[in-house]
């Protein structure tokens, strides 16, 4: 390796380390609050805890919390994974059609998907409540999955379409001549090549369901269905917030996200389409 590139690589590493430091710096306070005994929102400039205690974490599973952390974690996982799957499947087929097929209403539907993102979400809680009620899906995780996956579908469709557009069209044509149906082209040729985009989109859909609590708290009327963010938000009161518990809970909430991303990021590799088409 030549001299200048060694310097560049060192600079690159330094930049990544600096960025990671900046990204994690505010999180130190989360860790500090979680590890400090008590429920104060510690505003002091030092990000290090004065006393370290695991009491807040113990409380999450015990009396300080709802006492059902595992159940809430389970509900959250079910909802988020189902949202990612439903959102991904329905938007992958749609993205394929938008990218590869020409049909009347194509531009209009694309615009429609985009347009749904432009309406401020906070205005939608009450109408959605009424709708879910009419569908008899209040109080159910299914209803939540439906709402979350549909609200994430527009992004998923657009993002996947943008990605599929970069896959060479000759691949579809070769498959069509090989006798593949549209479904087979989608399933056997395009989807395997879209792995990175699927990973990104899955993460997005997963997270949009994972961290949401306002709609969940509004729709769910049964504590057994509560998701983790709902339980977590219960620590925030009108006058007083249990910051220690909240921070500990926030860490518990974040860890699965990082595990999911760690698993997905393996698919974010270069060269998946290399060699397929020349030029």
């Amino acid at each position, binding site marked *: 390796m030549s001299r200048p590139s060694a310097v560049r690589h060192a600079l690159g590493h330094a930049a990544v380390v600096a960025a990671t430091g900046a990204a994690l710096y505010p*999180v130190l306070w989360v860790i500090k609050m979680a590890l400090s005994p008590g429920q104060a929102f510690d505003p002091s400039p030092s990000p290090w805890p004065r006393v370290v205690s695991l009491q807040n974490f113990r409380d999450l599973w015990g009396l300080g919390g709802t006492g059902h952390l595992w159940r809430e974690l389970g509900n959250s996982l079910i909802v988020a994974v189902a949202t990612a799957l439903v959102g991904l499947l329905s938007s992958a087929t749609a993205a394929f059609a938008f990218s590869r097929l020409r049909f009347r209403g194509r531009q209009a539907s694309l615009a429609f998907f985009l347009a749904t993102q432009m309406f*401020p979400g906070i205005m939608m809680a009450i109408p959605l409540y009424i709708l879910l009620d009419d569908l008899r899906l209040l109080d159910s995780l299914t209803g939540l999955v439906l709402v979350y996956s549909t609200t994430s579908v527009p992004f998923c469709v657009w993002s996947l379409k943008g990605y599929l557009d970069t896959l060479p069209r000759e691949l579809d044509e070769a498959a069509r001549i090989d006798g593949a149906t549209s479904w087979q082209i989608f399933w056997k040729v395009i989807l395997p090549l879209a792995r990175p985009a699927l990973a990104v989109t899955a993460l997005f859909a997963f997270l949009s369901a994972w961290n949401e609590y306002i709609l969940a708290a509004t729709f769910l009327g049964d504590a057994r269905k509560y998701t983790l963010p709902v339980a977590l938000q219960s620590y925030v009161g009108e006058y007083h917030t249990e910051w220690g518990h909240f921070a500990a809970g926030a860490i518990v909430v974040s860890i699965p996200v990082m595990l999911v*991303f760690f698993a997905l990021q393996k698919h974010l590799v270069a060269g998946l389409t290399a060699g397929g088409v020349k030029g």
Partner: protein
Amino acid sequence: MSASAALLALALVAPRPVALWHSYRSEEAQALQSLADRFNASQDRYRLELLSIPFDAMSAKISAAIPRGHGPDLFVFAHERVGSWAPSGLLAPVAVDAARFLPGTAEAFRWEGRQLGAPLAFKTLALFFNRRLVASAPKTTDELLALGGRFADPAQGRFLLAYQSGDFYYHAAWLFGFGGSLFAPEEGGSGPRRDEAEGRAGSEGRLELDTPGAEASLAFVAKLQAEGFVPQEATSALVTELFSQGKAPFAINGPWFVGELPKDLDYGVAPLPVVSATGRPARPFLTVEGLYLSAHALEPEGAREALAFLVSDDSALLRAKVARQLVANRAAYDDPSVAKDPVLQAFRAAAALAIPMDASPRMQLVWEPGQSALRAALRGESPKVALAGADRQLRALQRPPPPRAAPWATLALVLCLAGAGLFFARRRPGTAEGGSRTAYAFVLPAALATVALVLLPILFSLGLAFFHHRADGGYDFVGLGNFADILASRGYAIIEPPSFYFTLAVTLLWTGANLVLHVGLGVALALLLHAPWLRLRGLFRVLLVVPWAVPNYLTALIWKGMFHRQYGAINGILRRLGFPAVSWFSHFATSFGADVATNVWLGFPFMMVVTLGALSTIPQELHDAATLDGATAWQRFRHVTWPLLRPALLPAVILGSVWTFNMFNIVWLVSGGEPGGTTDILISEAYRWAFARQAQYGYAAAYAAIIFVLLAAYSVGAQKLLARRESA
């Protein structure tokens, strides 16, 4: 035969459920639970079932659930909402013997002659003092200020009095103490103001903030801050920190403060001091938490029974003992163990002076202008000017609704527009191939779900934009009146902060700044994380996603803390580098910058991950070829990577800008619009109209509709760009 009889018997015997919703935490929740257990054990007809709901979601959930028949039988909430909920018919009357409760607490739930709730407990403010530093609480403000020289030393982080001086709820105590009020008497009325005369912020008279008393109170707190007696930008966390560390001998706070203080801290509680200038006591607001009976309760009889049980003196005593709750029942305070509790007794005394908060929806209008006048005065503006501004804002918020309109003109206009839209849509050259059944099958699941669960709610909300939401829950058709009010900037000069146009400009700036930084940072980091020579790639990738993973409610508040003038980490770093500390939220540019910094931190991982995905489509050969051609790293990026990245990135950029445009909670949590509402974005206005200002859903929906149109126009342009790329 016998089996079904047994089943029938079981059904008759099985206790019927009574649902109770509450937002209580820890000890209060435990006390409520043990009361429910006792109630369930005491009889076998009903079973009281508790559901804990996050406070954030409670009010919206009540409004949505009760009319649809999914609400609870009973729920716990503060009395301030009676005036909003009663007219829309959510509440059923309950029987309460007012004499059993502390004065004013049962009355707080009276609305238009009906008792619509039973008091459980009250919240008000009192003076906490650290016994290790002072022997007793001062009786007057002069006595208090006289101690200033002894304790206050801001440079060392020491103060006389810790309280949230920038919060109008706390300031109200001074306001009333200085003879100020919120409601002016009607024309021709004279004598004492109603609220003071009756010990209650009455619902008659018009809202008015600009009074001599208010001016004196603002001057008083501005002086407290200027002399370094109180900390700047005090949050509840900072107050707790200062008082429990002994860095401030006094604090003004509510009963919840007790739970935040260390167990070993030796402190006392006393009513707020008398304002020496007027000789009147500082009088905080009194809020009463009570039990409401839903008008749509499924078990009204059981609910009444449970309610009676929960507000009984015995139950109150348990709540007072277990949770140290400031219960509303007089009898509880005579119990020996409660009588010995100095905190409870002090608050009881404070409650006698407190002014019950007005329960009419109009009260919700006070907070915003009150807060902005207070903050302006603390920033050094003249109290007179600040109050005049507040009153002007108050008048703008109270502007009469647009006149009712005949639906025909608006309907005709909408139909014309729709017709024109269809006409132009049809004229566009259609695709030659026409429809493809397969394509529709592929799009159908996503389209169907989106139409049902996204489009319908949007249409519903858009429809509201043509209506005015009356206080009684009904709707008046006002045509385009809401839009006219907003676009004509009624109540404000066009370039004044809360006007539509000013806010729009800020919103555009906000969106642009975020977009540039999100994409710039995201792409740069993705390129680094994509480099084959980077070590520990997987680890760095995961660590850089952390800001996206941690719930942003918490991290946004941590960022706000980092921007604190005195205690924030950012000013700490600046000071270490030899720069002067910055008062971040006192100037538009720095306040806006704080918002942007927070949102960039929260949002860059998304762009980074999307870019990582997009980068994986670019074959390495292309890079190698460019390298062989002698391209520099920048040229490679500019001419090879970027053009290939763009199609996959563009959707994320368009959607990212749309989301940022509507990214309201960051601004809300970090700058809160400071200074003076200048950093608010359009969506904050919509939110305020819907949730903070008398539930004006019509205005809120009109704002939402305008935002929708703006963003649609933006995306049409963006889509044209995309289409051009596609055909290229």
